[in-house]
């Protein structure tokens, strides 16, 4: 709705450039097409993740009875979603991440009293509360390169916006970073060097509201990488292999949906129009396939970008 000029980043976090080690586990290039995978039978999807081979998508949404539900679908266009888990203990699932082996799905749920982190086998089974402590209102999730630790965005018990790490088995979370300049962190990606890439809806950066921050493994700083990113809820971000490009679902200043690719080194942004989408949100790449899962929270649909 505004007329900002997308400006090249002049304060690129040089210390972080290229810190995502080259890896075969991620797509090497930003997506060039967006295709609807599934819609119908659910509303208000939040986050979506892909199986390591990219052939199956999992997403959090609400079923036709408005019950919180985890769905599974083939990532092929025109697929039908099936229910993996629904209702209690799920309340408000908002963030997902896949285990490295693709056998377990982890769920950040903002409901209940202070939120919870759950797990569920990807081939079906019970939803388990990991009894993670120390994180209030968990939102975004990412899996560390060691495949043993998750990073989670949320709030501290005293209300500060924060980034945490927690073992995949659950238990006590460790605080990585808290406070300014974070305001409302959601989407999260962690690269092979442990740098967390955090989307924040309400932080105001050099070029406007909606900021991508980079937080090194030691939590020593939160550095603005790009701003004026009009993201949905939750924000989504994935980096391509090598960490050179951040892929983020956004809307342009006229409100049109797009997939924005941010060159981490230069701050240069490129947009891929997604005219079929209304409000693109949570985005995640497959670990070993060149496909991104993207949700359209307003239209109630799941898309693949590749």
């Amino acid at each position, binding site marked *: *709705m*505004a*007329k*900002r*000029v997308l400006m090249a980043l002049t304060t690129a976090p040089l210390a972080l450039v290229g810190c995502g080690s080259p890896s075969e586990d991620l797509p090497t290039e930003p997506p060039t097409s967006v295709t609807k995978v599934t819609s119908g039978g659910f509303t208000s999807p939040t986050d979506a993740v892909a199986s390591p081979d990219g052939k199956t998508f999992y997403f959090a949404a609400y079923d036709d009875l408005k019950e919180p539900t985890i769905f599974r679908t083939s990532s092929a266009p025109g697929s039908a979603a099936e229910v993996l888990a629904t209702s209690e203990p799920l*309340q*408000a699932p*908002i963030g997902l991440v896949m285990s490295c082996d693709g056998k377990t799905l982890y769920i950040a749920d*903002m*409901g*209940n*009293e*202070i939120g919870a982190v759950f797990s569920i086998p990807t081939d079906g089974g019970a939803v388990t509360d990991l009894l993670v402590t120390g994180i209030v*209102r968990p*939102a975004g999730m990412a899996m560390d390169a060691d495949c043993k630790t998750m990073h989670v965005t949320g709030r501290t018990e005293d209300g500060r916006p924060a980034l945490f790490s927690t073992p995949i088995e659950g238990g006590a979370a460790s605080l990585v970073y808290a406070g300014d300049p974070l305001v*409302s962190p*959601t989407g999260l990606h962690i690269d092979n060097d442990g740098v967390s890439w955090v989307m924040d*809806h*309400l932080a*105001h*950066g*050099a*070029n*406007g*509201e909606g900021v991508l921050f980079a937080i090194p493994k030691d939590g020593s700083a939160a550095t603005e990488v790009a*701003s*004026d990113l*009009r*993201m*949905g*809820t*939750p924000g989504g971000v994935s980096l391509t292999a090598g960490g050179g490009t951040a892929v983020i679902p956004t809307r342009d200043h*006229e*409100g049109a949906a797009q997939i924005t690719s941010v060159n981490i080194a230069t701050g240069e942004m490129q947009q891929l129009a997604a005219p079929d989408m209304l409000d693109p949100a949570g985005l995640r790449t497959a670990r070993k396939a060149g496909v991104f899962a993207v949700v359209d929270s307003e239209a109630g649909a799941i898309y693949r970008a590749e």
Partner: protein
Amino acid sequence: MKKLVPTIAGLTIAAGASITVMASSHREAPAIAEDQFVDNTDVYSFISPTNPDRLVIVADYVPLLLPQSGPNFYRFSDEARYEVHIDNDGDAKEDITYRWTFENHLKNDKTFLYNTGAVDSLDSPNLNVTQTYNLDRINENTGKKTRILSNAPVAPWNVGKRSFPNYETVALQAVKSASGVTSFAGPRDEPFFVDLHVFDLLGVGGAPTTDGVNVMSIVLEVPIADIAKGGIQPSSGDTSKSSVVGIYASALRPQIRILRRHHDEDDFGNMIQVSRLGWPLINEVIIPLGDKDKYNRSAPKDDVSNFGAYILDPEVPKLLNLVLGAGCPATPMGGRTDIVGLLSPNGTAAADLLRINITKGQTNAQSHFPNGRALADDVTDTLLTVACNNGGPIGDGVNANDKPFTTTMPYLASPASGNP
């Protein structure tokens, strides 16, 4: 503006025309009617009566407030954003946004009282429940955000004479200035005057139904150069698109709210516009029920594509004819382009923006709707007359506010007391 005579229907007629009335934008759409604290009711703008180089903008929210509404008196939502947007180049897209965000404070949570004794200043320890706000200016073209005021006080509710022996003295302490900008936020007397019996099948009779109720007001006074295109006030006689600014106010809430059994609720995510207003009465009586919520969520730049048909062929004249036999002529071929013209002065893009001439030499006396909107403007009469277009004025019989307005910040009258 009219000579009123009674009719057998209990209505009044002005120069042969029937009469009706509406509330500007109070509870005007289904969704916002359930979210009172972010319901934008009116926007006013006029050249400062004391300094023609400055523009005053008033954005009112939270409609129809009973003064005796304790113990939890009205305030602004601390989870919302209240914004005033300014288009200074005529394309119906905001170039500058002023944003107020509020924070609640409680000194003593062991009492139910708003104040624990008489209050003689905003710093009084007896004032138990308070709000503060931050005011930011956002350049929408560059994304730059500038903090103008931090932790500025909101004027308290006018609880009653025992609590506030000199209420207005305390309230005026909430007028704050910084960087050449003056701001006020707090309760004021509802400036809009109307007979709300209109919604009983146009059953108006000149009853001043908004007398004695309050509203939550945000008042901004800025140097005109601060909001003009390129930072320079246009010269006298300039008739370009940038000789006027277009103004609308809005309120936004986070996209997600989660209620909890044992903890405070959480508001979370992207900010979504839930209310907006430029001209009075557009969403009230031009936009039909099926699109009212859409109007509140949408942007002025899209008004023509979204709602242009309702402007070109408004329902109001037909209703006036049907119920009151007002003699409004049929919509002409091509529609009501005269109304569209009023919404697009000096070649600006047609949109629901309150536009006002900001060229040098403009005075407060020239700031009358639709060139801005003065607090005392009887916009109901103006718009009904324009909508019917039967050659005669149409009015509602309520022609002025019950309290006089002032010539200094915050310009609106002191709010009605909860215990006068």
